[in-house]
Structures are given as structure tokens and as C-alpha cells.
């Protein structure tokens, strides 16, 4: 058996899982199960931006691979496909070449919505969260406009220009807050607070904080801590953005 290729395959699947936003324990367990299905006893260690897989061949030769995970979002479609493939390979270990080809095709074959659907998601999400936080119909419309602006900034301007996460969030929050103030001044929106919070739901790290707590409860303390720090940093970026735009608005 070609253990180098097997290790590459396991690491690649773990990378795809991690990249689609899976929890740490799911990544570790999936890679472990996959390599165990091929008759090995692997060691897997993952933290939010790094994955290490190590195994010992039957001849006693240890091999290790480390893979760094770049910043990523959440992609449930990719996650479901990875999970399905992993379960399939565990039940029926295909020859390594075939399995490797299947894993390499995961990313190309997954379905993705066209960009306007994502933008519509931002608009509708922001609008209805504004209504959810106590805004009226006009507030929901204003929040939808702000959500559209944030979505365009995140997808078309911030990411291609290569801004890092902190500044992308900061400027996104500033845009949302300035636009909300403008719309309230013009008289379209009534409650500044619910418009701002509804729009910022796109950026706000409540999900990150809850996931961090879940990692800590699951026993992955290092991952949980680094995610908590990340959530606090994101929240700082948002509040700085809002404060800057308040200063400009005055």
C-alpha cells in the first residue's frame, strides 16, 4: 500500500472539512475513521488554522503531514458532501487512487448559488433581523438596503482587494452604520438601533462565540480559546467601525 498517498488523501479530506466550517471534533474524528478504515492507527490533531495527521507504517516508519487552513467561511453544501464521502469510504475503502480522485473532485462538483442569491440572502436576512429586533416595515427596508451595501462591500470590494478580516469587518460596519444614519435622517427609517443591529447580524460574531463555547465544552480548549479571541476581535472591529461612522455623522 502507498502510505504517502494515503496520508495525503486523509489530510486533503480533513482540509476540505475544515475549510467548509466543520467543528474540530468532526474533522479529527472523520480523518481518524477514514485512515482506520484503511487499517492504520493514525494520530490527528486540529486547531482552527492547522491540521496535523501522523501515522506509522507497518514497517515502523512514522510519517507526518501538516496543513495550514486559510481563513474561510461556512459552506454547508461542501461539508455535507465531505461527510457523505467520508462515510462512504469508511464503509467501503476504495483503492487509494480512486478515493483520491473523488476527494479532489469534491470542491469542483459542489453546487454554489450564483452571486445574486448570496446578495439576496444578505438583503433579506438584514431586513428581517431588523423587524425581528423591533423595527417597523420601513426599518426593515432600510436595513435591507444597508445589508445590500455590506454584501457588495464584502463580496466585490473587500475580498478582491485583499483586505484582512479585521479591516473588512471594520469598514463593513462603518458603511452599514453611516448608511443607516443617512436613511434615518432622510426619513425612510425610524429606529436607528434596530436597523443597525439587524444589518450588523451579517458581521456580528455571535455564532463564532457560541461555536467557541461548544468547542470548549467538547474538550478542545485551545480551539475554543482562539475562537473566543477571534470573536472578541471581530466585535472590536465592528464597534470601532460604528464609532468612526458616528464621529463622521456628527
Amino acid at each position, binding site marked *: 500500500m502507498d502510505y504517502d498517498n494515503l496520508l495525503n488523501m486523509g489530510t486533503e479530506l480533513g482540509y476540505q472539512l475544515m475549510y467548509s466550517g466543520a467543528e474540530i471534533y468532526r474533522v479529527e474524528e472523520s480523518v481518524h475513521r477514514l485512515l482506520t478504515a484503511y487499517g492504520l492507527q493514525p494520530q490527528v490533531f486540529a486547531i482552527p488554522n492547522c491540521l496535523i495527521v501522523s501515522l506509522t507504517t507497518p514497517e515502523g516508519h512514522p510519517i507526518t503531514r501538516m496543513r495550514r487552513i486559510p481563513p474561510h467561511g*461556512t459552506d454547508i453544501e461542501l461539508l455535507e458532501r465531505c461527510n457523505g464521502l467520508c462515510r462512504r469510504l469508511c464503509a467501503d475503502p476504495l483503492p487509494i487512487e480512486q478515493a483520491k480522485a473523488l476527494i479532489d473532485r469534491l470542491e469542483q462538483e459542489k453546487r454554489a448559488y450564483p452571486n445574486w442569491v448570496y446578495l439576496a440572502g444578505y438583503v433579506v436576512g438584514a431586513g428581517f433581523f431588523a423587524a425581528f429586533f423591533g423595527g417597523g416595515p420601513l426599518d426593515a427596508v432600510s436595513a435591507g438596503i444597508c445589508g445590500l451595501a455590506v454584501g457588495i462591500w464584502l463580496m466585490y470590494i473587500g475580498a478582491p482587494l485583499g483586505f484582512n478580516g479585521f479591516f473588512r469587518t471594520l469598514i463593513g460596519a462603518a458603511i452599514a452604520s453611516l448608511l443607516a444614519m443617512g436613511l434615518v435622517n432622510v426619513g425612510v427609517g425610524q429606529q436607528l438601533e434596530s436597523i443597525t443591529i439587524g444589518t450588523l447580524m451579517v458581521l456580528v460574531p455571535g455564532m463564532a462565540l457560541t461555536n467557541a463555547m461548544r468547542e470548549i465544552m467538547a474538550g478542545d480548549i485551545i480551539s475554543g480559546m482562539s475562537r473566543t479571541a477571534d470573536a472578541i476581535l471581530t466585535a472590536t472591529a465592528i464597534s470601532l467601525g460604528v464609532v468612526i461612522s458616528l464621529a463622521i455623522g456628527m
Partner: protein
Amino acid sequence: MEIILSFLPPCLWAFVACVAFGLVFNIWGGGILICGFGGALGWFVYLLAQHLLTDDIVAAFLAAVAIAVYSEIMSRIRRCPVTGYLQVALLPLVPGAGIYYSMRYCVAGETQLFLNTLLHTFGFAASLAVGAMLASTVMRALLPWINRWRVMCLGAGTPSAKEKE
């Protein structure tokens, strides 16, 4: 009764908002409606518990339990990982506003308000996490038993849950 009716509009907004965020997270097909119903269910339980118990941390715990039980069942039926359903359905509950306000107090120099809000936010997030983890663990322990019972009563279970094990 009137109180329960007054809960319905926010639940409806939560449903639509969760469906929209399901699109942003690239969820396809029926899964997106499952997320929406999960969000509405969680918010309904939260409002009801808050009305009866007047403590929002306990209410968040109960809502997280309801969402986790619902998501585990749905993930067994659809044979998909529970992550997506759980994350999107928890969205209306996650303390985004809390963490935002606490950092705003921090930037404004209001240390006391900052600490109060931050600790409350951490408590809220922790109770959501404990609720979700607890319900998932219990469900995972119980599902084989439920399956066995269903096979005994109905003669044959649906293949979905059986193949999962």
C-alpha cells in the same frame, strides 16, 4: 392565548431571516426550510420560557435544547451532518447584539457597563452551548433505543435512521 399569538410575528421574522442566512451558508434544497423552522421553533421556546420564568439565561438554555433535539432528529432523517441545521437555527438566539454593545461600551470608556454586558453575553453563549451539547449527547444515547422500539412496534423502521448507525 393572546400572549402566544403575540409571539408569532417575531417567530415568522426569525423563520425568514434564517432561510436567508441559509442561502449565505450555501445550504441547498429542503435543508433550508428545516433551518428556518428550527430558528422559529427556538425563538418560540425562548419567548415562552422567558414569559413563564422571566430569566433569559434559563430561557436560552431551554431554547437551545429544543433546537438541538430538533436538529438531531432532522439530521438523522436527512442523513446530513447536524452542524448546518444547528448553526443556522441558533442564529436568532446567538448574542450578537450583546457582544456588539459590550465592545461599544468598551470603546466609549464605560468600564462597568462593559463588564456587565460582556459577562452576561458570555453566560448567554455558554448556556446556549451547554443546552445544545446536552441535548445532542442525550439524543445520541437515546436514538438506538428509539429505533429498536420503532422496529418492534412497526415491524420495520425507515432505512434512514437504521443505516446511520
